[in-house]
């Protein structure tokens, strides 16, 4: 190879990364959150902030509503060898595909309040950040989609009632199905798209579904599943992550700006999610949904039984050390509150 040729081959190798470093690069982000929702709008606004604050060096394209595929496809597209997507706003279920520790946020009846969830989130952030780092991702911020509630065709009042119900479970989430079965539930593994259909049928394959209220409203689930057990099943925790490769391409002076905007997004969805839950439930009750609230005694019984249940996830669904840290943090908060 002549010197000239060698130089020509080497030139792009030298110049390209330098250009990329300077550019920060366009970030393409995918999420399952549907277009037009609170989360989608928050992401778009965050993109605008990125663009303005970095003088256009970092730009964001958002693909909402799962148009870039389901969460496991999104993750594949974020790997360095693909680099089709650089960021994503994933649910705990998607994050758990990267590391099972994230299952802690999806455990049914583990958390009682936003405060508990946030405390555990804060406590676990360093260790989860590390685990993500090891897989090639950088945690930008957390997010939330409100709380999952139990919608059912028959009124449910006790844990025994819930166990008797034909409970929707996501098809493909094998470990969850197993866990439900072992603990005496009757899970029916179906696709989310089956929920409204099966609720309409009599008898359907399932009669009870844990889903967030805004989704129940938009699916018009309240027409068939007329009861909601107001017993915050689990928060819909999510996180905004960026691939390490893309993170490294962003200039050092821009990174704090990018992080700041991501954290503003976290704050915003934190504030908006509870309001969205409340208005969704309100407009459904206006259309005939009955909300069942447990009295203090029944609730306490429910929680005690639920604690028993969630402890069986230690080690199998969630790594033991992470589980223990979470329990410790949560119980500490509960104790300080009860004082």
């Amino acid at each position, binding site marked *: 190879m002549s010197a000239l040729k060698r130089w020509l081959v080497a030139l792009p190798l030298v110049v390209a990364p330098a250009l990329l470093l300077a550019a920060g690069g366009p970030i*393409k982000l995918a999420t399952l959150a549907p277009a037009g929702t609170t989360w989608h709008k928050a992401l778009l606004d965050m993109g605008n902030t990125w663009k303005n604050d970095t003088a256009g060096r970092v730009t964001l*394209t958002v*693909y909402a509503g799962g*148009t*870039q*595929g*389901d969460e*496991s*496809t999104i993750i*594949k*597209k974020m*790997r360095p*060898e*693909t*680099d*089709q997507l650089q960021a994503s706003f994933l649910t705990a279920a998607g994050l758990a*595909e990267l590391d099972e520790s994230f299952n802690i946020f999806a455990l049914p009846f583990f958390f009682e309040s936003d405060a508990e969830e946030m405390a555990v989130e804060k406590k676990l952030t360093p260790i989860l950040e590390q685990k993500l780092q090891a897989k090639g991702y950088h945690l930008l911020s957390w997010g939330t989609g409100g709380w999952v509630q139990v919608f059912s065709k028959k009124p449910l009042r006790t844990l025994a009632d819930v166990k008797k119900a034909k409970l929707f479970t996501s*098809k*493909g989430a*094998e470990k969850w*199905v*197993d866990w439900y*079965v072992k603990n005496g539930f*009757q*899970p*029916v*593994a*179906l*696709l989310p*798209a*089956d929920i*409204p*259909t*099966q609720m*309409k*049928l*009599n*008898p*359907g*394959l399932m009669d009870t579904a844990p889903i967030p209220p805004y989704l129940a409203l938009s699916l018009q689930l309240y027409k068939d599943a007329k009861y909601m057990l107001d017993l915050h099943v689990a928060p819909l925790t999510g996180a905004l992550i960026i691939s390490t490769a893309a993170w490294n391409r962003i200039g050092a002076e821009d990174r704090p700006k990018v992080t700041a905007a991501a954290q503003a997004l976290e704050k915003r969805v934190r504030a908006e999610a509870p309001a969205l839950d409340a208005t969704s439930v309100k407009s459904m009750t206006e259309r005939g949904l009955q909300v069942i609230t447990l009295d203090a005694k029944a609730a306490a019984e429910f929680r005690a039984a639920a604690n028993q249940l969630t402890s069986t996830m230690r080690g199998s669904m969630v790594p033991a050390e992470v589980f223990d840290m979470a329990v410790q943090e949560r119980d500490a908060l509960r104790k300080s509150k009860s004082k």
Partner: protein
Amino acid sequence: MLKAFAIQTENRIASLALGGIMVLPLAEIASRRLFGTAITGSGPLAANLTLWLGMLGAAIAARDGKLLTLATAEFLPKGPVSAVAHVVSGAIGALICTILALGGAALVRSDRMAGDHVTAGLATWVADLALPIGFGLIALRLVWRASPLWYGRAVALVGIVAGVLLNQHRAILENQSVLPWFGMVIVAGVLGAPIFALLGGIALFASLTQGSPPIVLAIMAYQELTTSTGIAAIPLFTFAGFLMAEGQSSERLLRLFRAWVGWAPGGTAIAAATLCAFFTLFTGGSGVTILVLGGLLLPALMGDGYRERFSIGLLTASGSLGLLFPLSLPLMLYGIVSQKASIEDLFIGGLLPGLLMLGLLAMLGVREGLLTRAERRPFRLSEALWALWEAKWELFLPVFVLGAFLGGVATLVESAPLAALYALIMQRYIHRDLPAWKDVLRVAADCVALVGGVLLILAVAAGLTDYLVYTEVPTRLVEWSQTHIHSRLVFLLALNVFLLLVGTVMDIFSAIVVVVPLILPLAEVYGIDYVHLGIIFVANLELGFLHPPLGLNLLLASVRFKKPVLEVTWATLPMLGILAIGVLLITYVPWLTLGLLHWLGRGQ
């Protein structure tokens, strides 16, 4: 000897995968009924078997020269021109396929490094192997079939070498114009390269020129064939259709429909159209109806005194008539892809439009019957009842499937294996049309080759869709039409024309996968009901099957009836005209679709 063994082994493996996707969900239904719970891992396993079934089936189709192609190559003069066209299209097809195979191999490596699992004990990368193996085999077979001469094959082999080199140096394509590559792909398609290579090639070069590696296409192919359980319904309903097509089911049904409507003017024509509609339900409009029923129905019509031209036109048009009725695969696929309309609502919405299309064709039949004084059979109650009794098992199949769904035994998608099982038991044990398991395997092998071709197209079409969404074409389409199209009616008219064009150049399944995501945001802007949109879609694509010069039914009818494509086209023109009126009615009278839904208190 060795070759026969290899062929048989390949057929058996693919048939085994077909058996797997049938048995696993059935076991799941049974376990749910008996033990109140699901079987761990059966869902993901069945889904990955669908991937293997698709890729191996496609490889078998490539081996037997059964991959779907455009009709254009039919017009090439035989001799040296067509021989050269074969080699050129084979080489370009092999080039595209090679890069897709290498993309598959990259996915295998990527998933292996990530250490993902499909389910306990099955690593994702093992499942992924279907992609490089399938595409690799197809590339080799495209080369092999490019020419009967070793010289021709050697030339076609250049395609594979070029594919490997191009993949290695794909960086040189980045930010280059995509047009010459599109030109090359389209030329190959016109010269007879398979449709999947045409769609895959467009997706591939579009991706490469904007810097996306071919692994992205493999990721999308994997997702398309594995995550949507609905996809598994395609091979299973097709299998049910193939089983019924073997033996006497079509005769029994023809006798039934004739006994009930044969007294009317055009009775046999109506009976033939109805029978075609019934069969198309299961075969999903892939044109199998014409191939399977043509041989029975053409002599039946002509024997009763219908003119040949009319008969050919009628059967060509009837070949895609069932697509709007419940259980129709394209409607299911629309429901799955759009995620906006429920499949049941689509089925209910499609009833009146389906009957309208059938009625319009029946009117042509009546007219023809009166004109030619074709034979009419007096109505005899005893014969009618006897024919009904004889065909009871066939007629009960849709009832059984819908009953399982409405009775809460299975979801609609899960009802596909029930349909296949039902057809299998009926043909193997009740009618004994398939006297031995050997015959069942033969039918399975035929089915697998056809289905593989369809699934392969779906897999690469998903890559094309992904590219379009990635480059934000839907968003731009919405912006463009909002500034240029101000009325709903104009939008609908534009949609009609667009879909007709799509329907002529694409098969119905890939058309739905690629185009629905583009149109959905537009439909939202113009306030079109998603169920109505689905029915408009399928009705238009149904029409596209008959539209010259590329309509698939025209080609298949030409093959089946051994008539030139032009003659078939000419014979089909009246049907095309009257069905076009039907499509316009369906488009501009939403009540046809939504009336029944609203009456039942469903829909939005």
